[in-house]
């Protein structure tokens, strides 16, 4: 409700741009002053050339790689969201299920998921499905654990509030537990979002024809530092946009969350 005025937002954005420009400037200067070889640290200019100079950019099909990786990230994110929330609801709904499933989840969560990637490659073979599966595996647990916490840990007084009117279990879920879990769910999703990016890249490292992770590996083989840095830059931009989208969704789903306390 209380949006910052346009002028302040523009000034804030300009400040961020200046910050980035200063870092790039220092980087360029250091490379020039100390004559650092481009196969050790490429200058920002070289990195940008590999992305935007038509002659150099043509050797990599950037949009294909960006599209492949973004697609994997989004797909793994939505699978994580759907599966995570469904499982969390199931666990919170039934106490016996909670007692049975939660220890298994905690146990599975203690496995370093990335280490399972080679196994998953053997099971699912080369391609999208392996990458997505690795990403989901990595990103899944924070969503489940956070959402279950939000559904179960509730001020008992809030339950009294509806129970004295004889609320059904379904009503308690719809009116109290699920809205109460929303902030927890989004906290989990933000953690998962980063993990989806990591998971997708690791998936591409081990099994992929396209994607920025794949490109990163082949550039490594050619000691093409400029392309490697360009990949890293693109990945961080994709990660940032993705994170921002989740923030926007959070504000849209919870319009009450960013209101301050009022005075009479």
């Amino acid at each position, binding site marked *: 409700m209380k949006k910052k005025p346009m002028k302040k937002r523009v000034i804030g954005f300009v400040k961020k741009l200046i910050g980035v420009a200063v870092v790039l400037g220092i980087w360029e200067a250091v490379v020039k002053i100390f004559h650092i070889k481009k196969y050790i640290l490429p200058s920002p200019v070289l990195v940008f050339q590999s992305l935007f100079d038509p002659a150099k950019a043509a050797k990599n099909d950037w949009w294909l790689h960006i599209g492949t990786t973004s697609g994997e990230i989004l797909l793994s994110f939505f699978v994580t969201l759907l599966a995570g929330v469904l499982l969390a609801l199931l666990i919170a709904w039934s106490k016996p299920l909670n007692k049975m499933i939660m220890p298994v989840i905690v146990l599975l969560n203690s496995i370093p998921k990335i280490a399972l990637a080679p196994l998953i490659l053997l099971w699912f073979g080369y391609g999208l499905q392996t990458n997505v599966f690795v990403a989901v595996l990595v990103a899944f647990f924070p969503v489940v654990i956070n959402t279950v916490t939000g559904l179960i840990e509730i001020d008992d007084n809030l339950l009294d509030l509806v129970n*004295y009117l*004889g609320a059904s279990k379904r009503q308690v879920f719809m009116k109290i537990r699920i809205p109460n879990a929303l902030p927890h769910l989004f906290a989990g999703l933000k953690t998962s979002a980063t993990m989806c990016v990591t998971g997708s890249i690791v998936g591409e490292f081990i099994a992929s024809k396209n994607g920025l992770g794949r490109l990163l590996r082949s550039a490594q083989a050619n000691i093409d530092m400029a392309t490697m840095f360009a990949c890293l830059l693109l990945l961080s931009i994709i990660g940032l946009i993705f994170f921002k989208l989740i923030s926007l969704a959070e504000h849209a789903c919870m319009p*009450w969350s960013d209101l301050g306390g*009022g005075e009479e």
Partner: protein
Amino acid sequence: MEEKKTLLSIRDLKKVYTTREGELEALGSVSFDVGRQEFVSIVGPSGCGKTTLMRIIAGLMPQTSGELIVDKDYFDPQKDVGFVFQKALLLDWRRVIDNVLLPIEILKLDKKKYIPRAMELLELVGLKGFEKCYPNELSGGMQQRVSIARALIHDPKLILMDEPFGALDAITREKMNFELLRIWAESKKTVLFVTHEISEAVFLSDRIIVLSARPSKMVGNVEIELPRPRTLEQKLLPEFNRYALDIYNKLEVK
């Protein structure tokens, strides 16, 4: 006279909790009647089972022994009770108006029909124009008033109030007491009000039930015969202070 009719009869009500250290008597054999449209307060020291008593009446926990007798034709303990808790307990994700309408949703009544009533109640508690706000935009006193509107929305015959103004400062609290009396006079409800402030109880009530410290016993059932509407000046009257002193004596405060 309708006012003399009994709404609720409490007979030898007892509650014993089983804890690791053994049995803990939270409420020891309490009996009293509450008449229709009567304002009854329950006073007693902390831990004397006031809240336990309210929770049993609201059906939130079973009693260990004893009976709650109600005239089933007149009063349905599930639908005809409104509960105002110590904390406002508003749902952060609902606007004020939707918080007020929560009991309507739980009781599966037609929500649309109750919207005008919700607006009237918000006006009654002095929050006209705030219906679209979220709870965290309101002050503590305003939040508690929303919770009073919420307790009244389904037109309950009995309002249970468990130290509803305990968390408020003394000035706001005094204002809220006046508002409560005004709402009570206008809405013709029966109120059962828990407090440990003796002067507050004398000021508000028709009758005061006095409970002793644990193991709690009922040590008094005091009629307050001060004229209504109550005024601040009455607090200076000798009668007012005699009632307060009487209750202090019953509680063995020396």
